[in-house]
């Protein structure tokens, strides 16, 4: 599904990622754990096509996508960005429509309505608040909206960047239940999280990113019981 090879990237003269490689098999759920500033968001932005890598290649569904940045978003890959980034002045429903933008403009895809019904089914709270400006939703509801917006493009690979950030534990639980459900329904997932505990519990495999480099990769069950990972990322 996703194949990242020897990727390096950064901003200006600051290199953030050094020779990162990772892969996500179709239908697999993979997590990326690491401390604040390790480069998780930079990696997610590269994969989503928002940042051009300085070296390396990114392939999605076996086709090289390193150059075709704008082709990725809206077609096959969707990003739930760090900090949710909902369109605050626009209504919940409009936010979801924007998620399907590439399917609604320039030509209108009639099947979008069905996907919106699916999102409302997944998050009934969004249905209740569909006419309200997204900026007035609670943090948890905004996260649901950000996920719903990403789903509206019908992605095969969903990138989630820190979905637990700033949310109450109970809400985090709820979000992760949804993430597991989406994966169980066949969606490939790449999840970047500081909350390593939650991330490892919902992903099959995990990569540990430190200072822009992948330092460990293993099955989640192995990482959870690894003493060094426990000490560094699980606070145990």
């Amino acid at each position, binding site marked *: 599904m996703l194949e990242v090879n020897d990727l390096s990237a950064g901003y200006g003269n600051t290199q953030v990622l050094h020779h990162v490689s990772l892969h996500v098999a179709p239908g697999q759920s993979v997590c990326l754990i690491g401390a604040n500033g390790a480069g998780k968001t930079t990696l997610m932005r590269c994969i989503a096509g*928002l940042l051009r890598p300085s070296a390396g290649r990114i392939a999605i569904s076996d086709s090289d996508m390193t150059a075709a940045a704008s082709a990725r978003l809206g*077609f096959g890959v969707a990003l739930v960005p760090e900090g949710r980034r*909902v*369109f605050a002045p626009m209504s919940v429903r409009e936010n979801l429509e*924007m998620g399907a*933008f590439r399917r609604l403009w320039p030509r209108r895809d009639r099947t979008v309505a069905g996907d919106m019904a699916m999102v409302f089914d997944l998050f009934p709270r969004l249905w209740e608040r569909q006419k309200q400006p997204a*900026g007035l939703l609670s943090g948890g509801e905004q996260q649901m909206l950000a996920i719903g917006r990403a789903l509206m493009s019908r992605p095969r690979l969903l990138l989630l960047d820190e979905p637990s950030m700033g949310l109450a534990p109970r809400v985090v639980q709820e979000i992760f239940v949804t993430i597991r459900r989406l994966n169980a329904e066949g969606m490939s997932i790449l999840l970047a999280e500081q909350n390593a505990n939650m991330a490892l519990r919902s992903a099959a495999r995990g990569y540990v990113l430190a200072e822009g480099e992948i330092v460990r990769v293993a099955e989640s069950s192995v990482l959870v019981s690894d003493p060094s990972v426990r000490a560094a990322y699980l606070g145990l």
Partner: protein
Amino acid sequence: MQTSSAFLQLLVAGISTGSIYALIALGFNVVFKSTGAMNFAQGEWVVMGGMISALLLGTFSSVGVACLLAVLLVAIFGLLSERLVIRPLRHPTALLITLVSIGLSICTRSFVMLTLGKKPVGYPGFSGATTISLGGVTFQAQTLWIVGLTLAFLVIMHFFFERSMLGKALRAAAADREAAAIVGVRVETTILISFGIAAFAGALAGAIITPLTLASYDQGAMFGFKGFSAAMLGGVGSLPGAVVGGLALGLLEAFGSFYISSDFKDAIAFAVLLLILFVRPSGLLGRADVVKV
């Protein structure tokens, strides 16, 4: 009776000037929404609209056709301006775009002066020089055209931004550029479109007001500042705010210049601008965006 007909006369004058200000303010607001910048070339597009209409009237006998073509040409000029002047900026911050737009306005004014001349131009209204008398008030038929066309344009803009996917994409990009890019909106294109709309609105204002006022290359700055004041008064970035601000400013000018002194006509806009900046910087209909984090 004398005072009431004077009142009505001023009301009509205020609404028609106010419509023009509303169109210019709308141009300011559309660009502000998409870039966060104040585009000071806005007033020049008003002048261009009037002057090119006058030029085309030599070729086309119908005022309506000449004006329509002129407005479209200026809209294209607005698109080109964005492509040539704004797009190449490496770090397009709001302040930088504002400063660049001042340069753009000076260049546009010189361009208009060199190509279209320094002489003020004019042409008859869409219904010729017909005047209408109603309840003791006499006004030019063009006044109705101004109000009607402004209203039609505002309604179209409202539906464009609220209903069409492209309009929603413009709002989304205005709200959060990166998030818009994430859902596959090309943010540079939304900025381009907003400049096109702004130039269209400005040129429309110029094309419909010129039969009443004449157009000359050096009026742009004044049109720009009036529209800017109207946008600030109504609440910058707000579509209904442009209408309210434009009409309020037009009426204040009309009544102020009659009851105080016509010498103060232009000063009123600036007094209003200062007052609103002191008292309510977000404008009448503006509000700080509510965001829960």
